[in-house]
């Protein structure tokens, strides 16, 4: 049954009462406007009466409405009847159910600070729930027997904080113990959990049944993701205590990402998506903070369009704007945080962070003749792995595992061409790539560069003015290739990036040039390895959302692992296997950091850490305007603004008052007649 909240009273049948009021009160007033039904009396002459009363209005069809006790009493009686038909539900401090389940929302939107006395919604909900608990156990004129109460807190999942109990102190303590989270809101689990405590299984019946359905007291702002999938069962009754203001606006950061630019691997580009849940457009600055230091601010305020309500789907679509920040130099990684310059009622989504991983040591394969120059260069680089293969060995490995190239970040082909280069990242010297649309039309001698793209990252700190090549392969490159250096005889250095395959192709053998004797060759080699290894890939791990679990593999022998929480507190992680630990759920947004002491034997010399960014999902939880009603799949429950509503029917009292007024009206009428 639909409930409408007005004057802190829930009305079960407001439409019927409105119709009755509109159809009865105006006619009643009209009857008093119209001429009274008077007693006819023939008298010899009305001349004196006319002079006395001067009641000329009596000749008109309507008269001015004069005060009449009868009219007043009739209006009061009629008003009482109308109110009775509207079936008001008034808090009389009692509950008809013998068991009451307190469902308290602790999702991210409940952290909005728009409750009275500068409280968050959760704090207000806890206060109201405590008041409600006291009223249920408080006795009084209209109080029935105190029901058993259960306290369930819910957000991403539900948690029973207090099973059914008659102990008021225990229930209030459970309510006060509810901690805030930044999780999304789901209510289905909470109902299922509560029903699990109220369902009894009768061995004589096939299915379980609910004995004595409980009454639910829902304390929430109404922004619940799975309401349309939540249904109430027969006999279940929900009182929705609407927490928060329906006008609270919120702007949040729904997502943030960071990626290294292909051209500059040591630079990171940061992306953010800002959502606006308020109908009015928003304009504000965004800041980028790396490891606690402000690194960038948007040059001008970011404009975010206002949210739009889709009446058809009954949803609100937030306004969104994508923001791309200028590249940041971040060679070692770190915690990148994007913040709104101004804060609103819901602070949790005014920031979002990603953890940029530090550059990893590369895994390189050298295939081919294994020239001394290249081997020396690679060995001089801080590599994680360097394996040298002969061409036959590499081909054999390819035949065994077509995905073998994925085990290496870069494969250097030193004048060798495997049977397939369908996938992988290659630095190719002299050998003609096969199967990629590059064809050779001979060998050219004595070539020098004629066209150099100095701005390309491959050629950073590379001077090719003195390059002299005694012999090079003349190739015709297809449209997918990008020529970096070109001689009059044809391309000398070119690149290709096609799906899982990317390579840098040098068409000549460096050993047949003076290039190895130049500093530029070393730089070119290092640039190529870095460009191929990191080109265009994300540097940040996907941030977590509230409710996720942090998992980490610590080095063997790691000890004293602790979790540093966003609020600055540190919690020891108890794990039997330090190499595989998990901690969570991470209920609040912010930066979590696992710190541990690395074993000395593994080469570590002190504490190490892993950071986790947990961001509130503003796209789901960012809507901060409190709902005045909750729409379940099958019915709609109007919210009450007070924390102690019990929705007892008041119509019998109203009918009693109406009857008394009618008796009084009858007495007054008899006295007048």
């Amino acid at each position, binding site marked *: 049954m639909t409930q409408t909240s007005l004057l802190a009273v829930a009305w079960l049948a407001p439409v019927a009462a409105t119709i009755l009021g509109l159809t009865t009160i105006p006619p009643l007033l009209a009857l008093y406007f119209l001429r009274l039904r008077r007693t006819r009396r023939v*008298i*010899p002459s*009305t001349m004196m009466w006319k002079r*006395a*009363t001067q009641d000329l209005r*009596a000749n008109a069809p309507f008269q001015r409405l004069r005060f009449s006790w009868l009219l007043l009493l009739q209006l009061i009686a009629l008003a009482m009847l109308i109110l009775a038909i509207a079936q008001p539900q008034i808090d009389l401090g009692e509950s008809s159910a013998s068991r009451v389940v307190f469902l308290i929302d602790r999702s991210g939107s409940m952290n909005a600070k728009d409750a009275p006395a500068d409280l968050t919604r959760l704090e207000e909900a806890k206060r109201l729930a405590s008041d409600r608990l006291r009223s249920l156990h408080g006795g009084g004129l209209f109080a029935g027997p105190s029901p058993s109460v259960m306290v369930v807190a819910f957000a991403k999942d539900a948690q029973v904080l207090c099973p059914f109990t008659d102990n008021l102190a225990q229930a209030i303590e459970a309510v006060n113990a509810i901690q805030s989270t930044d999780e999304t809101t789901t209510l289905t689990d909470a109902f299922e959990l509560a029903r699990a405590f109220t369902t009894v299984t009768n061995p004589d019946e096939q299915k379980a049944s609910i004995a004595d359905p409980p009454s639910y007291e829902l304390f929430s702002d109404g922004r619940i993701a799975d309401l349309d999938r939540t249904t109430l069962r027969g006999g279940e009754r929900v009182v929705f205590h609407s927490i928060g203001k329906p006008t609270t606006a919120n702007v949040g950061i729904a997502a943030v990402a960071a990626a290294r630019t292909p051209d500059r691997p040591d630079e990171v580009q940061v992306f953010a998506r800002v959502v606006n849940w308020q109908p009015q457009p928003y304009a504000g600055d965004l800041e980028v903070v790396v490891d606690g230091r402000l690194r960038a601010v948007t040059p001008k305020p970011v404009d975010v369009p206002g949210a739009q309500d889709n009446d058809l789907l009954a949803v609100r679509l937030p306004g969104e704007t994508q923001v791309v920040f200028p590249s940041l130099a971040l060679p070692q990684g770190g915690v990148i945080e994007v913040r709104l310059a101004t804060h609103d009622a819901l602070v949790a989504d005014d920031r979002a962070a990603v953890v940029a991983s530090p550059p990893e040591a590369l895994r390189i394969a050298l295939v081919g003749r294994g020239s001394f120059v290249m081997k020396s260069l690679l060995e001089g680089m801080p590599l994680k792995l360097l394996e040298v293969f002969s061409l036959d060995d590499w081909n054999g490995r390819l035949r065994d595992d077509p995905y073998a190239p994925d085990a290496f970040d870069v494969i250097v082909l030193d004048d060798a061409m495997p049977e397939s280069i369908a996938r992988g990242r290659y630095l190719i010297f002299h050998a003609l790539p096969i199967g990629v649309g590059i064809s050779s039309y001979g060998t050219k001698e004595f070539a020098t560069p004629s066209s150099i793209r100095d701005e390309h990252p491959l050629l950073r700190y590379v001077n090719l003015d003195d390059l002299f090549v005694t012999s090079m392969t003349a190739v015709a490159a297809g449209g997918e290739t990008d020529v970096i250096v070109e001689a009059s005889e044809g391309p000398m250095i070119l690149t290709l990036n096609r799906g899982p395959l990317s390579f840098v192709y040098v068409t000549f053998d460096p050993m047949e040039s003076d290039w190895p004797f130049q500093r530029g060759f070393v730089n070119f080699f290092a640039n190529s390895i870095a460009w191929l290894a990191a080109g265009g890939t994300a540097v940040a791990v996907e941030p977590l959302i509230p409710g996720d679990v942090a998992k980490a593999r610590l080095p063997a022998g790691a000890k004293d692992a602790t979790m540093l929480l966003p609020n600055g507190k540190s919690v020891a992680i108890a794990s039997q296997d330090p190499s595989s630990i998990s901690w969570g759920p991470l209920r609040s947004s912010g930066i979590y950091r696992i710190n541990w002491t690395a074993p000395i034997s593994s080469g570590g010399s002190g504490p190490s850490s892993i950071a986790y960014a947990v961001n509130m999902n503003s796209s789901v939880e960012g809507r901060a305007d409190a709902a005045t009603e909750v729409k379940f799949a099958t019915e709609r429950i109007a919210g009450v603004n007070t924390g102690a509503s019990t929705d007892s029917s008041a119509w019998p009292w109203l009918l009693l008052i109406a009857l008394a007024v009618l008796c009084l009206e009858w007495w007054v009428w008899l006295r007048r007649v």
Partner: protein
Amino acid sequence: MSRLTKVDDLIDSRLMARLDRLDVISRKIFTGKIQGERRSRRRGQSVEFADFRNYSHGDDLRFVDWNIYARLDRLFLKLFLEEEDLSMVIAIDMSQSMDGGTPNKFDYARRLAMALGYIGLVNNNRVSLFGFGAERIERLTGMRGRRRTREMGQWILSRTAEGTEGFSDAMRTIALGGQGRGVLLILSDFLYPDGYEKGLAYVAGRGFDVFALQLLAPEEMDPARHGVAGDLRLIDSETGKETEVTASTSVLTQYRASLETYVAGLRDFSVRRSITHQVVETSLDLETLLLDYLRRRGLLA
């Protein structure tokens, strides 16, 4: 009280016996048409000497004072005061407004007219009765002597109250009707929408000794004490027009004030024209009215 159906209902023998001792007096001396029982300023043939005047040709030689002729040798005629009869005109309002009230105003007027007419007849006055309503004036004139009592009673009984008032026309007719000078008794409630001033002015200037007896029912005098209360639709019996009244305390108070103002206005109008005005509530006993009120007002003696 049941309505009047026979002459005895108008006046009973006991009242008649008490009225036999009364006579109508007038503050004025009028010229009658026949000799009556009262002195007139007109010189006549009574034994009471009045004056002398010179003889003129044609005078009755029987009234020549021969003793003066003998002494003065001139003819003088002796004049004597003549006793003349009194013309008593009773005008009864027969409009519908009179047919109301408890006791009924019209019945009361008829009984009062019968009693006054009887007094006039037994005192050998010339009694004339007029009944007036809208565009109708009914009359019975020239009665004298006790033997006309029943005739008068029958005429009064046959009058009915209906229609609207025609006060001005009736007074004009009476004033010009050549009834002779005398006493004019108007029995009416004087509740005339068109006013009483014009009608009274007709008779006030014609030598009548006018008595305006304003008959009002008790519920007209004090409605609150006679069951007039609540939301009422008052219907004027004469015009049929309706007036809606909520008889609250303030309205009733205002009604009494209006009635008093109206009666006071009629009284002032009458006094300025030598008309005797008397309010008569129909609950007043007729005998008390005749033997006490009207005697004190100088109509009866």
